[in-house]
């Protein structure tokens, strides 16, 4: 083993790193993605059940004075679709060793992610729904909050994989991390689609 200290020169003739254990990250990410989907669908089902219970008593579901506009949710859906395309572009670019395009695509994906978070914040200010005193408000905030948390995790994943790609960790030879981030990003898009339909569209 080479004996070096912090301030010594890093030797050139060091042994190559052994190959990474393949598909470990992909399988782990897929299991997490499956858990996210099951959890979010379960929450959505509970939301639908509570909503059905309230509507069956001829009571309005949303608190009085609260409306959910459609423009922002629809634009968010469009943003998420664009982000999925950008993420697929990043994966394709890394697979073809096209690093400039890969970083443009990573940046675009993150920009769409930030845009979705900003639009959600704007939508919440438009809704002006008090969080306390109404089951609809508690459930809607829970679902929106979980979607934002999933988005934050997906963005963190993309940042990590972009940094690893920048450091030379991923290329056409090995792009498993970027593929895993893509799987999780698509899950994130799926979570938003569930939210869009269950909360914003059906109200």
């Amino acid at each position, binding site marked *: 083993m080479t004996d070096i*200290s*912090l301030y010594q020169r890093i030797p050139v003739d*060091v*042994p190559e*790193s052994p190959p990474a254990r393949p598909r470990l990250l992909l399988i782990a990410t897929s299991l997490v993605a*499956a858990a996210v989907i*099951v959890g979010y*669908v379960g929450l959505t089902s509970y939301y639908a*059940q509570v909503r059905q219970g309230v509507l069956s008593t001829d009571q309005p579901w949303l608190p009085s004075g609260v409306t959910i506009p459609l423009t922002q949710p629809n634009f968010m859906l469009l943003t998420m679709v664009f982000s999925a395309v950008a993420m697929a572009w990043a994966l394709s670019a890394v697979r073809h060793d096209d690093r400039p395009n890969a970083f443009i695509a990573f940046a675009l994906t993150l920009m769409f992610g930030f845009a979705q978070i900003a639009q959600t914040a704007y939508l919440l200010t438009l809704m002006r729904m008090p969080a306390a005193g109404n089951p609809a408000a508690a459930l809607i905030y829970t679902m929106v909050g979980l979607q934002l948390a999933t988005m934050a995790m997906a963005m963190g994943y993309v940042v990590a994989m972009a940094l690893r790609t920048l450091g030379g960790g991923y290329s056409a030879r090995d792009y498993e991390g970027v593929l895993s981030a893509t799987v999780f990003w698509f899950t994130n898009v799926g979570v938003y689609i569930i939210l869009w339909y269950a909360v914003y569209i059906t109200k």
Partner: protein
Amino acid sequence: MFTWGSKYLFGVAGVALLGAIVYGLVTGGGIVGVVSVGYKGGVGEHTGYGTLLGVAAAALGLGVLNFITRDATVPVAEAADDSGGGALAIRTPHRASFWGPLAAFGLACLAIGVAVSQVFFILGVAVLSIVLLEWVILAWSDSATGDPLVNSAIRERVIGPLEVPLLASLGIAVFILGVSRVLLAVSEAGSVVVASVVAAAIFASCIALAKTRVSRGVITGVVALGALAVLAGGIAGAVVGEREIGHHHETGETGTQVEGEGE
């Protein structure tokens, strides 16, 4: 054509889907509503129906993944080389990593921040950002070469100049936020006592660590315990809330009169 893993998962997806349909029908749903996922007509009891649909979707996704990756099978050529250090070799970490516990600390701050105080939320975001950066660099450097010592040196060279200022800033922020919550929560006399005890404890710990030859693990343990105590005190202080503090009022033109200092 289909691998064992994908067959199993497709089976689970099919059973879950069938279960969702049957469950929806027996709990009062209509056939059209159950098949169209509630687009037209009722689906019966929503929670059970939806959860079964979620299981079906997740199993289907995992099944497709297993099918594409051939059950994550590693080709024999990749699996092992002559020295036994191929793709399936287990690589043990060269040294302990604290980023996992620190990430848990950041998540705890985030959750507490949402419930109690915005400052803890900001602290959680800061902690998680630093952990993300550090962990990524560590993961990258661990596989930079085949020599763990060289990998460690590479990590130090990349992140070392940032690490000390970042971690020092984080430590100072945690300490200031935690202790200030306690000082603001207790009475005026109590805050003097708390400040004195904390200062004395830091002083005594530093002398003890300097005068005795203790291992790095002991020092890490003492610092971790201190950080936990500060965090626990800060949370308790934030939950209790600030004591009532008097305000300074200016009266007249000739001087300043101070009213209602302390309690």
